[in-house]
């Protein structure tokens, strides 16, 4: 007898969007999101990541959380490419409010307006918020 997951249509790929709106370290959201992103990628799904509001701080270069006793998970964002997670979008307005430019970020991203992000959101099968 086949297992339930083997009955699934072969290669069913859904479009997953992860929306990250929290700063790292102050809450657990950023780290938890990253864990789920990696799981989705392991299932060969079409994954997009959005960083908006304080979520843009997750991608800030030079994070060094050892002095507050936490793990530096920011390096993981650089490894996402290796898991074929290459669609990283950042809200332009959120960056500007926080005095950040693309040079401040540790990965290559696409800067989008809120309207463009909204359109992208409409194309997804699944949207997960963190």
């Amino acid at each position: 007898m086949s297992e339930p997951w083997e009955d699934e249509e072969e290669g069913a790929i859904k479009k997953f969007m992860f929306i990250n709106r929290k700063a790292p370290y102050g809450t657990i959201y950023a780290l938890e999101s990253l864990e789920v992103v990696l799981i989705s990628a392991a299932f060969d799904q079409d994954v997009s990541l959005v960083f908006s509001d304080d979520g843009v701080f997750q991608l800030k270069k030079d994070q060094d959380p050892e002095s507050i006793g936490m793990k530096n998970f920011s390096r993981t964002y650089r490894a996402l490419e290796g898991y074929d997670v290459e669609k990283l979008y950042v809200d332009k307005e959120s960056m500007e409010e926080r005095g950040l430019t693309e040079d401040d970020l540790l990965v290559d991203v696409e800067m989008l307006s809120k309207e463009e992000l909204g359109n992208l959101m409409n194309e997804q099968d699944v949207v997960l918020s963190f």
Partner: protein
Amino acid sequence: MAMLHIVNKSAFGNATLNSCIKTATQGSSILLIEDAVYAAMGNTSMADIVKEAMNKASISVLGPDLAARGMDQSKVIEGISVIGYDGFVDIVAETDNVQSWL
């Protein structure tokens, strides 16, 4: 009575720091920790509000929390002092009372 206000929430999209600034009276201290440290940076949309608050309160920011988040200490608003955990203890000891804006 000298009061210490401790803020740990990001000032963007959260009214906590604004409430704290409006509440703090002349001569009080405000310490930014955890996600509140972003508000100490000189080039954000919050900078003018924070600079204005420095007219009545002395503002400091916790260095280890800046470093954790990759924020450059040299870009902190001029006049805000960057302190360590030892300085945190000193401020608490110097003030009569503490309000944590949780």
